[in-house]
């Protein structure tokens, strides 16, 4: 199908964008890469009155290192996320997650902010941000404020952003040197949305036990969640295969709003959760330095 009619404005600046959002509210949609918005328009699942093209705003792009954080502009292209030297050096997890998104043509246009604001439960970036305890910066009529990743995702395609607000920056704390990471997912084809996936960030002590771990689940739940019980079970424990397996089994308890659709039933997705969590834990354990 073809998109329904709408008006289109090329945003001249962030301020211009915010004015238009304030003016039109939910009738206006920001257009960054359009790789999620265009299919929704084509399938007529979205019928905005006006699209505001923010894809060329320098104010919203750019990757900066500051104060032990990496700060990404919302319109940084996914392709750039995977290739930016700062990110490659400091956040290889984010690079690996990007390679699981769609295909190169999609990543040439799709943006990190767009993916996060779209909040598809089966997307990789939201779970990565929840595992990394990232903070999102939003701007709107009331000014600028911050939302933690864990509070940002409310449900399928639903975030804490007001209709008049724009996600402008993503602040990611730099992992300590030697931090291990893993991202695993099960999808029917490479590049498809995950039926279930797991993101793990893990620090090991000098003795090899778990000093700190974050486990986020992709795709089995209406929004990405941290597997708190699994994380607690691992604290201070030696990271042997049986320990990882037991912890992975606990990850299912984090599912509080199960996802079920034609691509995978809730039962199937929840069967996958311990498997992907264990694989991601294994990978993170192998990558983590003893320090």
């Amino acid at each position, binding site marked *: 199908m073809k*998109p329904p009619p709408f*008006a289109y404005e*090329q945003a001249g600046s962030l301020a211009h964008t915010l004015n238009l959002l304030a003016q039109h509210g939910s009738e206006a949609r920001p257009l960054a890469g*359009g790789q999620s918005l*265009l299919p929704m328009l084509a399938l007529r699942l979205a019928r905005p009155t006006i699209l505001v093209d923010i894809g060329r705003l320098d104010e919203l792009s750019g990757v900066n290192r500051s104060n032990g954080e990496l700060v990404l502009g919302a319109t940084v292209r996914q392709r750039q996320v995977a290739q930016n030297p700062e990110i490659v050096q400091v956040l290889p997890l984010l690079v690996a997650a990007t390679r699981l998104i769609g295909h190169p*043509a*999609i990543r040439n246009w799709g943006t990190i902010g767009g993916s996060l604001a779209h909040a598809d439960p089966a997307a990789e970036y939201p779970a990565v941000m929840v595992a990394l305890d990232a903070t999102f910066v939003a701007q709107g009529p009331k000014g600028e404020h911050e939302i933690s990743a864990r509070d940002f995702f409310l449900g399928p395609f639903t975030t804490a952003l007001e209709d008049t607000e724009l996600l402008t920056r993503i602040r990611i704390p730099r992992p300590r040197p030697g931090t291990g990471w893993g991202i695993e997912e099960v999808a029917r084809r490479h*590049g498809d949305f995950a039926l279930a996936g797991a993101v793990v960030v893990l620090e090991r002590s000098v003795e090899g036990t778990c000093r700190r771990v974050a486990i986020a689940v992709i795709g089995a739940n209406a929004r990405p969640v941290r597997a708190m019980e699994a994380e607690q079970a691992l604290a201070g424990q030696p990271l042997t295969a049986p320990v990882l397996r037991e912890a992975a089994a606990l990850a299912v308890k984090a599912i509080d709003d199960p996802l079920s659709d034609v691509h995978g039933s809730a039962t199937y997705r929840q069967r996958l959760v311990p498997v992907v969590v264990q694989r991601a834990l294994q990978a993170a354990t192998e990558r983590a330095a003893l320090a």
Partner: protein
Amino acid sequence: MQLVRLSLKVNGQPVEAEVEARTTLADFLREQLGLTGTKLGCEHGVCGSCTVLVDGAAARSCLLLAAQVDGCEITTIEGLTSNGTLHPVQQAFWEAHGLQCGFCTPGMVLTAVALLNEHPAPSESEIREALSGNLCRCTGYQNIIRAVQLVVEKQQRAG
């Protein structure tokens, strides 16, 4: 109905046009410019048959508004042939029998061109990964992979 003014390059030629805001790049190329080499398969970004190059990089033309590419350089499959001579990737597809009905072929060829521009000597698994977003119902993909490998082989022999 809002019209948007565009000024861009398509296959090296400057183009001035007016489009409805909702016109996708794919429909602009096909309907307004008559360049029907770019195909519409799924129209939601999954099949890859609409793939073109925007400023040299692969893009899904069904997932772009024409308005988004104002000022850009678009290359479609029609732009690969010059003076009747097939582009090396097209020639390799021909020699390796990498097509049957030809519907996926423009998208496949342009995706391969984009891949080789960045990675002149990809491994088989890199080729498979790069083309994994282009669906083919006829060939079973083997000869498509061979066609891309043939381009690499020929370039290595020549270079």
